[in-house]
Protein backbone atom coordinates (compact mmCIF):
# COMPACT_ATOMS: atom_id res chain seq x y z
CA UNK A 1 0.00 0.00 0.00
CA UNK A 2 2.16 2.80 -1.20
CA UNK A 3 0.93 6.28 -1.93
CA UNK A 4 0.84 7.56 -5.48
CA UNK A 5 2.96 10.67 -5.95
CA UNK A 6 1.10 13.58 -7.49
CA UNK A 7 2.88 14.98 -10.53
CA UNK A 8 2.42 18.53 -11.84
CA UNK A 9 0.91 17.13 -15.04
CA UNK A 10 -2.09 15.76 -13.15
CA UNK A 11 -5.22 17.71 -14.00
CA UNK A 12 -7.88 18.83 -11.58
CA UNK A 13 -11.57 19.53 -12.00
CA UNK A 14 -13.10 22.73 -10.61
CA UNK A 15 -14.41 20.64 -7.69
CA UNK A 16 -11.01 19.32 -6.62
CA UNK A 17 -10.83 21.43 -3.46
CA UNK A 18 -14.39 20.44 -2.55
CA UNK A 19 -13.51 16.73 -2.83
CA UNK A 20 -10.50 17.23 -0.59
CA UNK A 21 -12.52 19.17 1.98
CA UNK A 22 -15.03 16.32 2.06
CA UNK A 23 -12.23 13.86 2.76
CA UNK A 24 -12.35 12.21 -0.65
CA UNK A 25 -9.55 9.72 -1.17
CA UNK A 26 -7.85 11.10 -4.26
CA UNK A 27 -6.22 8.94 -6.93
CA UNK A 28 -4.81 9.53 -10.36
CA UNK A 29 -7.19 8.36 -13.07
CA UNK A 30 -6.29 8.85 -16.74
CA UNK A 31 -4.20 11.89 -15.82
CA UNK A 32 -6.83 13.35 -13.48
CA UNK A 33 -6.70 13.78 -9.71
CA UNK A 34 -10.11 12.37 -8.78
CA UNK A 35 -11.86 11.00 -5.68
CA UNK A 36 -12.04 7.18 -5.74
CA UNK A 37 -14.28 7.18 -2.65
CA UNK A 38 -15.35 9.27 0.32
CA UNK A 39 -14.49 7.25 3.46
CA UNK A 40 -16.33 9.87 5.54
CA UNK A 41 -19.69 8.81 4.05
CA UNK A 42 -18.93 5.10 4.26
CA UNK A 43 -16.86 4.41 1.16
CA UNK A 44 -17.50 2.54 -2.09
CA UNK A 45 -20.14 0.06 -0.91
CA UNK A 46 -22.24 2.74 0.81
CA UNK A 47 -21.90 5.04 -2.21
CA UNK A 48 -22.82 2.26 -4.65
CA UNK A 49 -25.94 1.31 -2.71
CA UNK A 50 -26.99 4.95 -2.30
CA UNK A 51 -27.27 5.08 -6.10
CA UNK A 52 -29.21 1.80 -6.30
CA UNK A 53 -31.61 2.72 -3.49
CA UNK A 54 -31.76 6.51 -3.50
CA UNK A 55 -29.34 8.91 -5.10
CA UNK A 56 -25.62 9.55 -5.50
CA UNK A 57 -23.77 12.63 -6.79
CA UNK A 58 -20.66 12.36 -8.99
CA UNK A 59 -18.17 14.87 -10.34
CA UNK A 60 -17.66 13.73 -13.94
CA UNK A 61 -16.07 16.92 -15.22
CA UNK A 62 -13.10 14.94 -16.50
CA UNK A 63 -15.32 13.67 -19.32
CA UNK A 64 -14.76 15.47 -22.61
CA UNK A 65 -17.15 17.24 -24.96
CA UNK A 66 -17.00 17.95 -28.70
CA UNK A 67 -19.63 20.12 -30.39
CA UNK A 68 -20.57 19.99 -34.08
CA UNK A 69 -22.45 22.98 -35.51
CA UNK A 70 -23.31 23.94 -39.08
CA UNK A 71 -25.16 22.81 -42.20
CA UNK A 72 -23.27 19.50 -42.39
CA UNK A 73 -23.05 18.76 -38.67
CA UNK A 74 -25.27 15.70 -39.03
CA UNK A 75 -23.30 14.40 -42.01
CA UNK A 76 -20.05 14.75 -40.04
CA UNK A 77 -21.47 12.96 -37.00
CA UNK A 78 -22.88 10.22 -39.21
CA UNK A 79 -19.50 9.72 -40.89
CA UNK A 80 -17.59 9.19 -37.63
CA UNK A 81 -20.16 7.35 -35.49
CA UNK A 82 -21.74 3.90 -35.75
CA UNK A 83 -25.26 4.60 -34.48
CA UNK A 84 -27.77 6.50 -36.64
CA UNK A 85 -27.80 10.12 -35.51
CA UNK A 86 -30.38 10.99 -38.18
CA UNK A 87 -32.96 9.27 -35.98
CA UNK A 88 -32.40 11.78 -33.17
CA UNK A 89 -35.07 14.38 -32.55
CA UNK A 90 -33.92 17.72 -31.16
CA UNK A 91 -33.47 17.06 -27.46
CA UNK A 92 -32.67 13.39 -27.84
CA UNK A 93 -29.45 11.47 -27.14
CA UNK A 94 -28.02 8.08 -28.12
CA UNK A 95 -25.17 5.79 -27.15
CA UNK A 96 -22.73 5.36 -30.03
CA UNK A 97 -19.04 4.91 -30.82
CA UNK A 98 -16.34 6.26 -33.10
CA UNK A 99 -14.52 3.50 -34.97
CA UNK A 100 -11.23 3.07 -36.77
CA UNK A 101 -11.43 1.85 -40.39
CA UNK A 102 -10.70 -1.68 -39.08
CA UNK A 103 -13.92 -1.61 -36.99
CA UNK A 104 -12.25 -1.23 -33.58
CA UNK A 105 -12.92 1.55 -31.09
CA UNK A 106 -11.57 5.10 -31.05
CA UNK A 107 -13.98 5.67 -28.15
CA UNK A 108 -17.58 5.18 -27.11
CA UNK A 109 -19.66 8.37 -26.95
CA UNK A 110 -23.07 9.78 -26.19
CA UNK A 111 -24.39 11.86 -29.07
CA UNK A 112 -26.77 14.64 -27.97
CA UNK A 113 -28.82 16.58 -30.52
CA UNK A 114 -28.98 20.08 -29.07
CA UNK A 115 -30.59 21.84 -32.06
CA UNK A 116 -31.33 21.67 -35.78
CA UNK A 117 -27.66 21.44 -36.86
CA UNK A 118 -26.10 21.19 -33.43
CA UNK A 119 -24.69 18.00 -31.87
CA UNK A 120 -22.68 17.43 -28.68
CA UNK A 121 -20.55 14.29 -28.29
CA UNK A 122 -19.58 13.39 -24.73
CA UNK A 123 -16.34 11.39 -24.74
CA UNK A 124 -14.05 9.68 -22.23
CA UNK A 125 -11.52 11.49 -20.05
CA UNK A 126 -8.55 9.33 -21.01
CA UNK A 127 -9.17 9.69 -24.74
CA UNK A 128 -10.06 13.41 -24.97
CA UNK A 129 -7.09 14.63 -26.99
CA UNK A 130 -6.92 11.52 -29.17
CA UNK A 131 -10.67 11.79 -29.88
CA UNK A 132 -10.59 15.47 -30.78
CA UNK A 133 -7.60 14.96 -33.06
CA UNK A 134 -9.43 12.04 -34.69
CA UNK A 135 -12.58 14.10 -35.20
CA UNK A 136 -10.61 17.02 -36.67
CA UNK A 137 -8.72 14.77 -39.07
CA UNK A 138 -11.83 13.00 -40.28
CA UNK A 139 -14.44 15.73 -40.56
CA UNK A 140 -12.52 18.41 -42.51
CA UNK A 141 -14.53 17.71 -45.66
CA UNK A 142 -17.81 18.71 -43.98
CA UNK A 143 -19.22 22.22 -43.76
CA UNK A 144 -19.46 22.38 -39.98
CA UNK A 145 -17.65 23.88 -37.04
CA UNK A 146 -16.05 21.38 -34.64
CA UNK A 147 -15.20 22.67 -31.19
CA UNK A 148 -13.46 21.04 -28.22
CA UNK A 149 -15.46 22.13 -25.15
CA UNK A 150 -14.00 19.69 -22.61
CA UNK A 151 -12.74 22.42 -20.31
CA UNK A 152 -15.88 24.54 -20.57
CA UNK A 153 -18.18 22.52 -18.30
CA UNK A 154 -18.34 21.19 -14.81
CA UNK A 155 -20.34 18.01 -15.34
CA UNK A 156 -22.26 16.69 -12.34
CA UNK A 157 -24.11 13.36 -12.44
CA UNK A 158 -27.14 12.92 -10.17
CA UNK A 159 -27.84 9.19 -10.31
CA UNK A 160 -30.39 6.85 -8.81
CA UNK A 161 -34.17 6.44 -8.53
CA UNK A 162 -34.42 9.61 -6.42
CA UNK A 163 -32.25 11.69 -8.74
CA UNK A 164 -35.31 13.19 -10.41
CA UNK A 165 -36.70 14.32 -7.03
CA UNK A 166 -33.43 15.97 -6.06
CA UNK A 167 -32.89 17.85 -9.31
CA UNK A 168 -36.54 18.89 -9.58
CA UNK A 169 -36.08 20.87 -6.33
CA UNK A 170 -33.36 22.92 -8.03
CA UNK A 171 -34.77 23.59 -11.49
CA UNK A 172 -37.77 25.12 -13.22
CA UNK A 173 -37.53 22.57 -16.04
CA UNK A 174 -40.29 19.94 -15.92
CA UNK A 175 -38.19 16.80 -15.51
CA UNK A 176 -41.20 14.49 -15.75
CA UNK A 177 -41.37 15.50 -19.42
CA UNK A 178 -37.76 14.42 -20.04
CA UNK A 179 -37.52 10.71 -20.88
CA UNK A 180 -34.41 8.57 -20.42
CA UNK A 181 -31.79 9.58 -23.01
CA UNK A 182 -33.50 12.90 -23.69
CA UNK A 183 -32.34 16.35 -22.64
CA UNK A 184 -33.62 19.82 -21.95
CA UNK A 185 -32.40 23.24 -20.89
CA UNK A 186 -33.50 25.07 -17.77
CA UNK A 187 -32.51 27.23 -14.83
CA UNK A 188 -30.58 25.17 -12.28
CA UNK A 189 -29.58 26.67 -8.91
CA UNK A 190 -30.34 30.10 -10.38
CA UNK A 191 -28.08 29.54 -13.41
CA UNK A 192 -29.95 30.10 -16.65
CA UNK A 193 -30.03 27.83 -19.69
CA UNK A 194 -28.25 24.83 -18.17
CA UNK A 195 -28.04 21.62 -20.22
CA UNK A 196 -29.86 18.83 -18.35
CA UNK A 197 -29.56 15.34 -19.85
CA UNK A 198 -31.31 12.25 -18.51
CA UNK A 199 -28.22 10.07 -19.00
CA UNK A 200 -25.64 8.31 -16.87
CA UNK A 201 -23.23 5.44 -16.39
CA UNK A 202 -24.72 3.64 -13.42
CA UNK A 203 -27.52 1.46 -14.89
CA UNK A 204 -30.00 3.63 -12.96
CA UNK A 205 -32.24 6.51 -13.87
CA UNK A 206 -30.43 9.80 -13.44
CA UNK A 207 -29.31 13.13 -14.83
CA UNK A 208 -26.13 14.82 -15.91
CA UNK A 209 -25.97 18.60 -15.74
CA UNK A 210 -23.43 20.85 -17.43
CA UNK A 211 -22.65 24.02 -15.48
CA UNK A 212 -20.04 26.79 -15.86
CA UNK A 213 -16.57 25.63 -14.98
CA UNK A 214 -15.42 28.31 -12.52
CA UNK A 215 -14.66 26.98 -9.06
CA UNK A 216 -17.17 29.00 -7.05
CA UNK A 217 -20.13 28.26 -9.34
CA UNK A 218 -19.18 24.60 -9.51
CA UNK A 219 -18.90 24.33 -5.72
CA UNK A 220 -22.18 26.20 -5.25
CA UNK A 221 -24.05 23.75 -7.50
CA UNK A 222 -22.36 20.67 -5.98
CA UNK A 223 -23.25 21.77 -2.46
CA UNK A 224 -26.83 22.66 -3.36
CA UNK A 225 -27.37 19.30 -5.04
CA UNK A 226 -26.01 17.45 -1.99
CA UNK A 227 -28.13 19.58 0.32
CA UNK A 228 -31.28 19.00 -1.78
CA UNK A 229 -30.50 15.29 -1.76
CA UNK A 230 -30.15 14.99 1.99
CA UNK A 231 -33.77 13.94 2.55
CA UNK A 232 -33.27 11.15 -0.01
CA UNK A 233 -30.04 9.88 1.53
CA UNK A 234 -27.82 11.37 -1.18
CA UNK A 235 -24.10 10.62 -0.92
CA UNK A 236 -21.16 12.01 -2.86
CA UNK A 237 -19.76 9.16 -4.96
CA UNK A 238 -16.29 8.55 -6.32
CA UNK A 239 -14.83 6.67 -9.25
CA UNK A 240 -14.82 3.41 -7.28
CA UNK A 241 -18.61 3.27 -7.07
CA UNK A 242 -18.88 4.58 -10.64
CA UNK A 243 -16.90 1.54 -11.76
CA UNK A 244 -18.82 -1.08 -9.76
CA UNK A 245 -22.17 0.45 -10.78
CA UNK A 246 -21.32 0.37 -14.47
CA UNK A 247 -19.93 -3.17 -14.15
CA UNK A 248 -23.19 -4.49 -12.61
CA UNK A 249 -24.99 -2.88 -15.56
CA UNK A 250 -22.51 -4.32 -18.12
CA UNK A 251 -21.63 -0.85 -19.40
CA UNK A 252 -18.37 -0.84 -21.33
CA UNK A 253 -15.26 1.02 -20.16
CA UNK A 254 -12.69 2.15 -22.71
CA UNK A 255 -9.42 0.27 -22.30
CA UNK A 256 -11.29 -2.68 -20.80
CA UNK A 257 -14.33 -4.03 -22.70
CA UNK A 258 -13.63 -1.82 -25.73
CA UNK A 259 -10.34 -0.63 -27.23
CA UNK A 260 -8.49 -0.08 -30.48
CA UNK A 261 -7.98 -3.85 -30.80
CA UNK A 262 -11.56 -4.97 -30.06
CA UNK A 263 -14.35 -4.74 -32.64
CA UNK A 264 -18.04 -3.95 -32.15
CA UNK A 265 -19.28 -7.52 -32.67
CA UNK A 266 -16.86 -8.89 -30.08
CA UNK A 267 -17.97 -6.29 -27.55
CA UNK A 268 -21.60 -7.27 -28.11
CA UNK A 269 -22.69 -3.71 -28.90
CA UNK A 270 -24.65 -4.82 -31.99
CA UNK A 271 -27.78 -2.91 -31.08
CA UNK A 272 -25.96 0.43 -31.17
CA UNK A 273 -24.58 -0.08 -34.67
CA UNK A 274 -26.75 0.67 -37.67
CA UNK A 275 -25.43 -1.31 -40.63
CA UNK A 276 -28.28 0.04 -42.78
CA UNK A 277 -26.52 3.43 -42.66
CA UNK A 278 -24.93 3.62 -46.14
CA UNK A 279 -21.53 4.83 -44.92
CA UNK A 280 -19.55 5.39 -41.74
CA UNK A 281 -15.98 4.80 -40.67
CA UNK A 282 -15.41 1.16 -39.80
CA UNK A 283 -18.49 -0.13 -41.62
CA UNK A 284 -16.69 -2.08 -44.36
CA UNK A 285 -14.37 -3.87 -41.95
CA UNK A 286 -17.29 -4.78 -39.73
CA UNK A 287 -19.20 -6.26 -42.65
CA UNK A 288 -16.20 -8.49 -43.40
CA UNK A 289 -15.72 -9.33 -39.73
CA UNK A 290 -19.35 -10.37 -39.48
CA UNK A 291 -19.01 -12.71 -42.45
CA UNK A 292 -15.78 -14.18 -41.04
CA UNK A 293 -17.42 -14.93 -37.69
CA UNK A 294 -16.41 -14.18 -34.11
CA UNK A 295 -13.16 -15.36 -32.58
CA UNK A 296 -14.06 -14.14 -29.10
CA UNK A 297 -17.03 -12.59 -27.39
CA UNK A 298 -17.69 -10.67 -24.18
CA UNK A 299 -19.48 -12.62 -21.46
CA UNK A 300 -20.54 -12.12 -17.87
CA UNK A 301 -18.97 -14.40 -15.26
CA UNK A 302 -20.01 -15.12 -11.75
CA UNK A 303 -17.48 -16.76 -9.46
CA UNK A 304 -18.65 -20.16 -8.26
CA UNK A 305 -15.67 -20.83 -5.98
CA UNK A 306 -14.14 -18.31 -3.57
CA UNK A 307 -12.16 -15.55 -5.25
CA UNK A 308 -12.45 -12.24 -7.05
CA UNK A 309 -11.57 -12.04 -10.74
CA UNK A 310 -9.66 -8.83 -11.47
CA UNK A 311 -8.92 -6.91 -14.65
CA UNK A 312 -6.37 -8.76 -16.77
CA UNK A 313 -6.62 -12.17 -15.06
CA UNK A 314 -6.50 -15.17 -17.40
CA UNK A 315 -9.60 -17.22 -18.17
CA UNK A 316 -8.93 -20.96 -18.47
CA UNK A 317 -11.00 -23.82 -19.86
CA UNK A 318 -12.11 -26.32 -17.24
CA UNK A 319 -9.08 -28.43 -18.22
CA UNK A 320 -6.64 -25.55 -17.65
CA UNK A 321 -6.00 -24.27 -21.21
CA UNK A 322 -5.85 -20.46 -21.50
CA UNK A 323 -8.87 -19.25 -23.50
CA UNK A 324 -9.35 -15.59 -22.68
CA UNK A 325 -9.04 -12.80 -20.15
CA UNK A 326 -11.01 -10.71 -17.69
CA UNK A 327 -11.70 -7.13 -18.81
CA UNK A 328 -13.29 -5.95 -15.53
CA UNK A 329 -13.88 -7.83 -12.32
CA UNK A 330 -14.93 -6.93 -8.81
CA UNK A 331 -17.06 -7.67 -5.83
CA UNK A 332 -20.50 -6.34 -6.80
CA UNK A 333 -21.78 -4.31 -3.85
CA UNK A 334 -25.51 -4.43 -4.64
CA UNK A 335 -25.64 -8.01 -5.91
CA UNK A 336 -23.19 -9.16 -3.21
CA UNK A 337 -21.47 -11.49 -5.66
CA UNK A 338 -18.05 -11.65 -7.30
CA UNK A 339 -18.63 -10.83 -10.96
CA UNK A 340 -16.56 -10.15 -14.06
CA UNK A 341 -16.71 -9.39 -17.75
CA UNK A 342 -14.37 -11.48 -19.90
CA UNK A 343 -13.50 -12.32 -23.49
CA UNK A 344 -13.86 -16.03 -24.29
CA UNK A 345 -14.25 -18.08 -27.50
CA UNK A 346 -17.88 -18.22 -28.71
CA UNK A 347 -18.14 -21.96 -28.04
CA UNK A 348 -17.67 -21.28 -24.31
CA UNK A 349 -19.96 -18.24 -24.19
CA UNK A 350 -23.25 -20.00 -23.52
CA UNK A 351 -24.97 -19.24 -20.24
CA UNK A 352 -24.08 -22.02 -17.83
CA UNK A 353 -20.64 -22.76 -19.35
CA UNK A 354 -18.08 -23.42 -16.65
CA UNK A 355 -14.63 -21.85 -16.91
CA UNK A 356 -11.83 -21.01 -14.51
CA UNK A 357 -10.21 -17.70 -13.66
CA UNK A 358 -6.54 -17.82 -12.73
CA UNK A 359 -6.19 -16.07 -9.39
CA UNK A 360 -2.67 -16.02 -7.93
CA UNK A 361 -1.73 -19.20 -9.79
CA UNK A 362 -4.90 -21.12 -8.95
CA UNK A 363 -7.78 -21.92 -11.32
CA UNK A 364 -10.94 -20.74 -9.57
CA UNK A 365 -14.29 -21.90 -10.96
CA UNK A 366 -16.69 -19.41 -12.56
CA UNK A 367 -19.85 -19.69 -14.61
CA UNK A 368 -21.13 -17.75 -17.61
CA UNK A 369 -24.27 -15.86 -16.55
CA UNK A 370 -26.70 -13.57 -18.39
CA UNK A 371 -25.88 -9.87 -18.57
CA UNK A 372 -26.52 -7.22 -17.49
CA UNK A 373 -25.88 -8.62 -14.03
CA UNK A 374 -28.19 -5.90 -12.71
CA UNK A 375 -31.23 -4.42 -14.39
CA UNK A 376 -33.08 -1.58 -12.72
CA UNK A 377 -36.63 -2.44 -11.68
CA UNK A 378 -39.44 -0.82 -13.63
CA UNK A 379 -40.88 1.93 -11.49
CA UNK A 380 -44.29 3.50 -11.78
Amino acid at each position, binding site marked *: *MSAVEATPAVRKTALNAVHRQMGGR*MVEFNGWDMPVEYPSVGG*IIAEHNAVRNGVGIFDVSHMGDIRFQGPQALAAVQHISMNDASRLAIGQAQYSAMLYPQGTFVDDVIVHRLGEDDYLLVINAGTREKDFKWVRENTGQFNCHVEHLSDDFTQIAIQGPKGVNVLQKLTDADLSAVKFYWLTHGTVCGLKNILIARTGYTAEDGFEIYVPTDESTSAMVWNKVLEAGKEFGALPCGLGARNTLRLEGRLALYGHEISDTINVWEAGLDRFIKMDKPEFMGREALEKAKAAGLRRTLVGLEMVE*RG*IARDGYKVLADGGREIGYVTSGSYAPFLKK*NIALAYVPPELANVGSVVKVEI*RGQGVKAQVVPTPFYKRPKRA
Partner: protein
Amino acid sequence: MSYPSDLKYTKEHEWIKANGATATIGITHYAQASLGDIVFVDLPKIGTEISVGKAFGSVESVKAVSDLFAPASGQITEVNGELATAPEKINQDAHESWMVKITLKDPGELNALLSAADYEKFVAEEAGNAVF
Protein backbone atom coordinates in the same frame (compact mmCIF):
# COMPACT_ATOMS: atom_id res chain seq x y z
CA MET B 1 -6.26 5.83 16.52
CA SER B 2 -4.21 4.28 19.25
CA TYR B 3 -2.18 1.18 18.50
CA PRO B 4 -2.17 -1.40 21.33
CA SER B 5 1.21 -1.58 23.00
CA ASP B 6 1.10 -5.36 23.46
CA LEU B 7 1.26 -5.83 19.67
CA LYS B 8 4.28 -5.58 17.37
CA TYR B 9 3.98 -4.11 13.87
CA THR B 10 5.50 -4.43 10.39
CA LYS B 11 6.09 -1.67 7.85
CA GLU B 12 3.72 -3.63 5.58
CA HIS B 13 0.97 -2.97 8.16
CA GLU B 14 0.52 -6.34 9.84
CA TRP B 15 0.36 -6.76 13.60
CA ILE B 16 1.47 -9.75 15.68
CA LYS B 17 0.71 -10.56 19.28
CA ALA B 18 3.00 -13.12 20.92
CA ASN B 19 1.93 -15.35 23.76
CA GLY B 20 4.88 -17.54 24.69
CA ALA B 21 5.67 -19.80 21.73
CA THR B 22 2.47 -18.95 19.85
CA ALA B 23 1.32 -15.73 18.18
CA THR B 24 -1.76 -14.16 16.58
CA ILE B 25 -1.54 -12.15 13.33
CA GLY B 26 -3.76 -9.54 11.68
CA ILE B 27 -3.61 -6.24 9.74
CA THR B 28 -3.56 -2.80 11.30
CA HIS B 29 -6.20 -0.11 11.56
CA TYR B 30 -4.16 1.97 9.11
CA ALA B 31 -4.15 -0.92 6.61
CA GLN B 32 -7.92 -1.41 6.73
CA ALA B 33 -8.52 2.33 6.39
CA SER B 34 -6.21 2.52 3.38
CA LEU B 35 -7.84 -0.47 1.71
CA GLY B 36 -11.43 0.62 2.25
CA ASP B 37 -14.33 -1.87 2.29
CA ILE B 38 -12.74 -5.31 2.70
CA VAL B 39 -14.68 -7.96 0.78
CA PHE B 40 -12.37 -10.99 0.61
CA VAL B 41 -9.63 -12.61 2.66
CA ASP B 42 -7.50 -15.49 1.37
CA LEU B 43 -5.71 -17.32 4.20
CA PRO B 44 -3.52 -20.46 4.27
CA LYS B 45 -4.68 -23.82 5.60
CA ILE B 46 -3.83 -25.10 9.07
CA GLY B 47 -0.41 -26.72 9.02
CA THR B 48 1.06 -24.38 6.40
CA GLU B 49 4.57 -23.08 7.14
CA ILE B 50 4.95 -19.32 6.71
CA SER B 51 8.26 -17.43 6.51
CA VAL B 52 9.06 -13.99 7.86
CA GLY B 53 8.74 -11.28 5.20
CA LYS B 54 7.06 -13.62 2.68
CA ALA B 55 3.48 -13.37 1.45
CA PHE B 56 1.19 -15.88 3.16
CA GLY B 57 -2.22 -14.72 1.95
CA SER B 58 -4.10 -11.74 0.63
CA VAL B 59 -6.79 -9.29 1.53
CA GLU B 60 -9.03 -7.57 -1.02
CA SER B 61 -11.15 -4.46 -0.88
CA VAL B 62 -13.62 -3.52 -3.61
CA LYS B 63 -10.80 -1.71 -5.44
CA ALA B 64 -7.55 -3.39 -4.49
CA VAL B 65 -5.72 -6.64 -3.80
CA SER B 66 -3.02 -6.56 -1.13
CA ASP B 67 -0.62 -9.32 -0.05
CA LEU B 68 -0.28 -10.28 3.58
CA PHE B 69 3.34 -10.56 4.72
CA ALA B 70 4.37 -12.79 7.60
CA PRO B 71 5.68 -10.78 10.56
CA ALA B 72 7.40 -13.95 11.81
CA SER B 73 8.07 -17.53 10.71
CA GLY B 74 6.04 -20.44 11.97
CA GLN B 75 3.30 -22.97 11.36
CA ILE B 76 -0.40 -22.09 11.09
CA THR B 77 -2.39 -23.62 13.95
CA GLU B 78 -5.66 -21.74 13.57
CA VAL B 79 -7.47 -19.67 10.93
CA ASN B 80 -10.23 -17.19 11.70
CA GLY B 81 -13.04 -18.77 9.69
CA GLU B 82 -15.44 -15.94 10.48
CA LEU B 83 -13.57 -13.70 8.02
CA ALA B 84 -14.56 -15.95 5.08
CA THR B 85 -18.18 -14.83 5.41
CA ALA B 86 -17.73 -11.54 7.27
CA PRO B 87 -14.50 -9.89 6.06
CA GLU B 88 -15.97 -6.47 6.95
CA LYS B 89 -15.16 -7.32 10.59
CA ILE B 90 -11.61 -6.19 9.77
CA ASN B 91 -12.90 -2.72 8.89
CA GLN B 92 -14.91 -2.62 12.09
CA ASP B 93 -12.03 -3.58 14.41
CA ALA B 94 -8.75 -4.48 12.76
CA HIS B 95 -6.86 -5.15 15.97
CA GLU B 96 -9.48 -7.60 17.29
CA SER B 97 -10.16 -9.32 13.95
CA TRP B 98 -7.22 -11.69 13.90
CA MET B 99 -6.47 -13.72 10.77
CA VAL B 100 -4.22 -16.63 11.76
CA LYS B 101 -2.45 -18.09 14.78
CA ILE B 102 0.98 -19.67 14.49
CA THR B 103 3.55 -21.50 16.56
CA LEU B 104 6.64 -19.32 16.42
CA LYS B 105 9.77 -20.82 14.91
CA ASP B 106 11.98 -18.19 16.51
CA PRO B 107 10.37 -15.76 19.00
CA GLY B 108 13.52 -13.64 18.62
CA GLU B 109 12.28 -12.54 15.18
CA LEU B 110 9.79 -10.25 16.90
CA ASN B 111 12.59 -8.05 18.23
CA ALA B 112 13.09 -6.69 14.71
CA LEU B 113 9.49 -5.40 14.52
CA LEU B 114 8.12 -1.96 15.35
CA SER B 115 6.67 -1.04 18.72
CA ALA B 116 3.26 0.66 18.85
CA ALA B 117 4.89 4.09 19.28
CA ASP B 118 7.30 3.52 16.36
CA TYR B 119 4.53 2.22 14.13
CA GLU B 120 2.34 5.22 14.92
CA LYS B 121 5.20 7.50 13.93
CA PHE B 122 5.78 5.45 10.77
CA VAL B 123 2.17 5.69 9.56
CA ALA B 124 1.96 9.37 10.43
CA GLU B 125 4.88 9.95 8.07
CA GLU B 126 3.45 7.67 5.41
CA ALA B 127 0.05 9.38 5.64
CA GLY B 128 1.79 12.74 5.44
CA ASN B 129 3.24 11.81 2.07
CA ALA B 130 0.07 10.28 0.74
CA VAL B 131 -2.22 12.03 -1.68
CA PHE B 132 -5.30 11.11 0.31
